[in-house]
């Protein structure tokens, strides 16, 4: 582990070989149905979300996914959601609350999509609402950083009762390239930036930013173990009185 550099972790988090959000969802649910649309403007394919059962227990799952090839990558803007994607996420999370379904978010995004249309449709506003309203949802809410957890675009879906992160993932205020550009005016120093940013799961767990490191999933058995871990946590949270669960959640964020 120690010979592993932080920048290697960045590359692993971005790797094309990583299990896709879709494969993850298919692995942890029995009968997943994708649900589309934000009911206001559009349907952002970068946000892949819907409902299904986990050991016969209904759950709502919201993922931000990258593409499998160049074409899908272009469609999902390399895993960068637009405001309508976040609006869809919020809609489905509120729906989960109505039907008392636990929520699982699976995050693999370099950040919210930076473009003019996204600005016009309220990128900042939608993230602000997902953070504020998401934190208030009266159902268990587990967030998992699967690959990249980039900035506010990732935080939008990571304000639950716990935040888990895959072994080969990163979670940071911005990309190491962006950090090097802003602080040192030199994007080529990304490698160095990754070291000082403390963006690996090992660093994040020390700071209490994440609560658990999930071993990288490469086969079916590992997927089953992940499902069992998730289900166990859902059971644990479901057994708690809602007020207690929420107070614990609020305290988690208040203490930063």
């Amino acid at each position: 582990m120690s010979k592993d550099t932080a920048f290697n972790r960045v590359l692993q988090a971005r790797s094309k070989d990583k299990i896709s959000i879709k494969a993850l969802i298919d692995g942890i649910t029995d009968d997943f149905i994708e649900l589309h649309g934000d009911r206001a403007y559009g349907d952002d394919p970068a946000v892949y979300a819907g409902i299904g059962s986990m050991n016969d227990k209904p759950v709502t799952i919201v993922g931000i996914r990258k593409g499998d090839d160049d074409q899908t990558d272009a469609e999902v803007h390399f895993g960068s959601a637009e405001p309508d994607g976040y609006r869809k996420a919020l809609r489905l999370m509120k729906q989960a609350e109505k039907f008392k379904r636990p929520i699982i978010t699976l995050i693999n995004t370099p950040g919210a999509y930076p473009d003019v249309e996204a600005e016009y449709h309220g990128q900042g506003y939608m993230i602000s609402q997902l953070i504020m309203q998401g934190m208030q949802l009266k159902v268990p809410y587990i967030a998992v950083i699967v690959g990249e957890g980039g900035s506010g675009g990732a935080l939008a879906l990571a304000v639950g009762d716990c935040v888990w992160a895959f072994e080969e993932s990163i979670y940071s205020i911005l990309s190491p390239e962006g950090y090097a550009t802003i602080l040192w005016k030199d994007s080529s120093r990304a490698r160095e930036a990754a070291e000082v940013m403390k963006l690996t799961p090992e660093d994040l767990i020390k700071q209490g930013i994440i609560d658990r490191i999930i071993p990288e999933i490469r086969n079916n058995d590992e997927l089953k173990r992940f499902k069992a871990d998730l289900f166990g946590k859902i059971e644990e949270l479901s057994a708690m009185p809602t007020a207690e669960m929420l107070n614990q959640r609020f305290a988690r964020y208040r203490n930063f």
Partner: protein
Amino acid sequence: MKKNKRQKLSSQELHKRMDKVPDVWVKCPFCGKTIYKKQLGKYLECPDCHYAFRIGAKQRIELLCDNFEPFNLELKANPKYQDPKYLAKLEKARETTGLNEGVLTGIGTINGHRTAIGVMDWRFIMGSLGTATGELLARLFERATQEKLPVIVFTASGGARMQEGIESLMQMAKVSEAVSEHSKAGLVYISYLCDPTTGGVTASFAMQGDLLLSEPHALIGFAGRRVIERTIQQIPPKDFQRAETLLHNGFLDAIVKRNEMKTTLSHILAIHEGGDKNE
């Protein structure tokens, strides 16, 4: 008209001279007009386009409040941050603003309305949201919830404070939590977006107000212009993140000229007087 000689100067020359006497002439950053500074008046507005010049936190309080009691003034960045460059920036920001952190918080009175007020100071490392900044804002909302007071936050920020890394990002969640507690108590939160409000501040408490107000031509956005240009090779239109564009697209309640700030706010506060006691 009195000084014909000055009119013969090229604009380049004029600006060069203006730079040497910054206390006399200013250029409006929005419409580009050269203005004799006294013409800006006490509210520091462009007489032509009403652009509201950036002002510090203390100056904003002076324009707005009949009296103001600040709190938590001693709070500052955690000493665990040791990067000398960051420490130097903090030192300079403290000197410039007279504040220990990027937001001034307290309880003030606006035409008789007792209100919890937070004012971000853009001169404090671009008004960036550090851990202490977030703590000050969270405590402001918590105090207001306890005392059943409305909150007004004037935002002016480049976003998260990069030097504090992911903990700065977490401030967005921390402040949002305090905003919701205040909201659940039936109390009003007015977010007043000033030039410039961007990044993580836009993506959290700046956009969480019950009412969203702004100043003329204020820059408000999530992704910065250069980030958009660099990432997707798109050149954004000139005014794509101006307050007027956001108003047009439905993301602001009103744009208020600075000379009307106090009367507008006291009007809104009066309508919400009684807070949760309104039935």
